């Protein structure tokens, strides 16, 4: 059993008030809050060993380099990557996806096919559209059903020897659906296609084992896992990372430079041009330590209870419809109330101190599918409570009485 009261003590922000009301933070799918342990790590870095890494001979630089590389090892261990250099530090999921999409420009040719799921975040749609435009490859969409589950039967039909890449999120940010990625990966591999899984929404709730999944690329952002913004990672199988050309040129990513020719550094530095987010990388490691100390099994179990309770209570509200009712889902509830614009609902909830997300959640194709302008999305983390669910339900009822 998680001691939620004690856990909440770790998050200073949860003590604050918004609009004169205690903050009820239910926008965890957008970004998670930061525990004191991670904040301390950030402060410690700037107070004690701030330096540029990998090139200084002096002590501070050595210390910073060690901590940064230790963080890489923590990430490697967490995701069970075979090699530490298969972990590339990036600025986050969007950067990771662009790195891969850009790299594939030279490996994809006209007429090749790229499959992308219907429930992607814009960040996992636009880079592939840009790749298709550059290469003449064809982008095809794996559709979903009304519950917000991927149509695996159609996926099977779409796969062919023309398929070169498959992109899919592990968990949908707008609907909370957990996709059957192992099946998606295995079937893609059976036709020789590579697979990138966007793990931005999955990594706060579960621990993916990249070797067991046999996934080619996996991405995530630290700020959704109690870490800071502006840092994330790309896992790539060594053979794929060696095939991809560098993404950005600059310092750190080179072996030798003359004006005639530059040879590139080995992995992972080939993809890490310039001074990285050193403090962010180290804090990313600290965030994983924090989450692992609590335990992902416990977190998933508790969040599932919260999801079930919130679903049950919200469904009691007349006229409320939940979007995304997959059998397998995480603690995300997207909903609307008949005749109420999600933006109005969100504005009133904010006045009551309740933070939710409204709009299309950077997933316009999903909103088009349901023919709605957007939804109100409440997303729960392990530090949320049943009492906060009650505040949300009361808030929704209050807003409903005002708006109708």
């Amino acid at each position, binding site marked *: 059993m998680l001691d939620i009261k004690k856990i909440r003590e770790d998050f200073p922000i949860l003590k604050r008030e918004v609009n004169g009301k205690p903050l009820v933070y239910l926008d965890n799918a957008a970004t998670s809050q930061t525990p004191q342990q991670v904040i301390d790590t950030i402060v410690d870095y700037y107070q004690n060993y701030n330096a540029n890494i990998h090139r200084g001979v002096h002590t501070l630089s050595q210390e910073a380099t060690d901590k940064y590389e230790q963080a890489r090892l923590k990430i490697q261990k967490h995701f069970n990557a075979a090699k530490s250099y298969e972990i590339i530090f990036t600025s986050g999921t969007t950067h990771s996806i662009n790195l891969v999409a850009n790299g594939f420009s030279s490996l994809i040719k006209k007429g090749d096919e790229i499959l992308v799921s219907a429930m992607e975040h814009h960040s996992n749609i636009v880079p592939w559209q840009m790749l298709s435009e550059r290469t003449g490859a064809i982008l095809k969409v794996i559709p979903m059903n009304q519950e917000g589950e991927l149509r695996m039967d159609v996926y099977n039909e779409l796969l062919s020897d023309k398929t070169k890449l498959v992109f899919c999120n592990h968990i949908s940010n707008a609907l909370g659906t957990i996709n059957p990625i192992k099946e998606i990966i295995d079937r893609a591999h059976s036709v020789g296609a590579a697979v990138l899984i966007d793990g931005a929404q999955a990594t706060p709730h579960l621990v993916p084992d990249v070797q067991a999944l046999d996934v080619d690329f996996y991405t995530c952002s630290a700020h959704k896992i109690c870490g800071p913004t502006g840092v994330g990672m790309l896992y790539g199988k060594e053979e794929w990372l060696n095939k991809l050309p560098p993404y950005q040129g600059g310092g750190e990513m080179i072996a030798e430079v003359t004006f005639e020719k530059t040879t590139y550094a080995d992995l992972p530095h080939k993809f890490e041009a310039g001074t990285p987010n050193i403090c962010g990388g180290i804090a990313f490691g600290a965030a994983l330590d924090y989450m692992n100390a609590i335990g992902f099994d416990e977190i998933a179990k508790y969040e599932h209870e919260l999801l079930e309770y919130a679903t049950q209570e919200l469904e009691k509200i007349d006229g409320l419809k939940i979007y995304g009712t997959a059998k397998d889902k995480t603690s995300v509830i997207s909903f609307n109330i008949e005749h109420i614009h999600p*933006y109005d609902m969100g*504005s009133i909830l904010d006045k009551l101190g309740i933070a939710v997300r409204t709009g299309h959640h950077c997933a316009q194709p999903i909103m088009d599918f349901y023919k709605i302008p957007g939804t109100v999305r409440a997303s729960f983390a392990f530090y949320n409570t049943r009492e906060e669910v009650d505040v949300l339900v009361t808030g929704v009822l209050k807003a409903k009485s005002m708006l109708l």
Partner: protein
Amino acid sequence: MDIKEIQEEIIDEFSMFDDWMQRYEYMIELGKSLPLIKEEYKTEDNIIKGCQSKVWVHAELEGNKLVFTADSDAIITKGIIAILIRAFSNQKPQDILDADTQFIDEIGLKEHLSPTRANGLVSMIKQLKLYAVAYQTQIEE
């Protein structure tokens, strides 16, 4: 009443409220009483860009005065437009152009709106003034 007087009346009304919940309730009421745009004018051309919710505004001359009608799919947004229309509709285009929008700050509207809504508010005012420019030119010709 001229624009200035209407604006002062709105400031007076808003000063009666103690908290933002009441102000929201009032805006929602105003939204419900907004002079609705005719369905035929709810076109892509009449949509104001920069709002998270959809906003349509239509303007036409009645005599020498400009009359605005509008609609939105979100009710608080409708309330905001209702306030603007009350201040600017049924006025001469030149007066609309000359009017300042200080009253928006005085009723504290902008600071209590989310940034996307505040941007939308700026777009709405800009659009009303653009209509005034267009019709003023038409009158002068």
